């Protein structure tokens, strides 16, 4: 084996660390994409029996966005196993308790329920804000593209930018401004 082939072999089977910024992203749409990186489905060498999945570091999971009234309509069910041990938690209540849990459960639920699932989940690292430990940060070499554009708030624009933006409406004559 030549030196080139040997390095190519290492690079092929090395684990890559991907970064994903979950700000204003739907966790359930994002989970579909993150799952592909975790399982290694994006690689040409993919086979369910070879261990070629990558690591994904999800940051800002506290800033995820849900569609419409989903924050108070989506329910998470848990049963302790004892009689009367069932609980139903709304998405916003769960997010209050743990801002990483909705993202984690979303990724867990898009994967097939086989013996590999727990080990694949160990390669997912979720942080509620952008405060990532240095030990994990130094591994990251790639970033996964966000699915939807992050909206900009009106008060984040400079005042002259708002004032000079093209106007589609002018007030009628003698309109009292307020």
């Amino acid at each position: 084996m030549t030196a080139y082939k040997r390095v190519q072999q290492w690079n092929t089977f090395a684990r890559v660390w991907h970064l994903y910024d979950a700000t204003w992203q739907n966790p359930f749409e994002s989970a579909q994409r993150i799952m592909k990186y975790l399982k290694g489905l994006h690689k040409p060498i993919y086979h369910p029996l070879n261990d070629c999945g990558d690591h994904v570091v999800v940051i800002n999971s506290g800033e995820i966005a849900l569609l419409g009234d989903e924050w108070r309509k989506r329910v998470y069910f848990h049963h302790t196993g004892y009689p009367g041990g069932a609980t139903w938690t709304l998405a916003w209540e769960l997010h209050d308790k743990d801002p990483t849990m909705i993202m984690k459960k979303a990724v867990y639920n898009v994967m097939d329920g086989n013996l590999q699932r727990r080990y694949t989940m160990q390669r997912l690292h979720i942080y509620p804000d952008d405060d990532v430990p240095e030990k994990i940060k130094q591994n990251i070499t790639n970033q996964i593209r966000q699915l939807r554009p992050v909206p900009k708030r009106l008060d984040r624009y400079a005042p002259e930018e708002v004032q000079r933006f093209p106007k589609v409406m002018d007030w009628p004559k003698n309109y009292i401004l307020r």
Partner: protein
Amino acid sequence: MILGALKLWQRYTCLSVAMCVPRQNVHLSCAKMIKEIHESQEGNVRIFQGVNILSPREPYLVKTDDSRGCCTICSLGLDVKHTDVLILSQFLRSDGCMLPRRVTGLCRNQQKRMSKMVAMAQKAGLMPNIAPPKSKMDPKRRYKWKKYNTYFDESTIKDVRSITSGKKGASTQM
């Protein structure tokens, strides 16, 4: 940048280049004056004054060719999303109320679309600075589920079912 806003900006710049005439604030014919109420205190007397001013929007107004003869949004062919806060905020009063149709000059359909999208943008906390003075400006300080990020789907806004839709096809086409 948001798509609708970008398209509007392109339209604006290409129009102003095509005409090659710098927009000016001096009008020989009647200028469109609007009124502003000034409040001042002199000893025991509080004075309210109505002052005529030139509209600050005049130089930035987009010229529309009224080919479809509907309203500015329709004739520009803009696909406005609820995240285009720079466009939506033009239809608002300073306290965040939607202006009526006689002021905005929109057609019935677009007026409904715009007011729905204004509500979406306000629920998503994208226009916290245009709000009643007592409101919590920061969306993060809101109550329970309202403090979390939410986005909306514009396709849920239904078209206005016009009374004249049977006679005029133009309003339903859009």
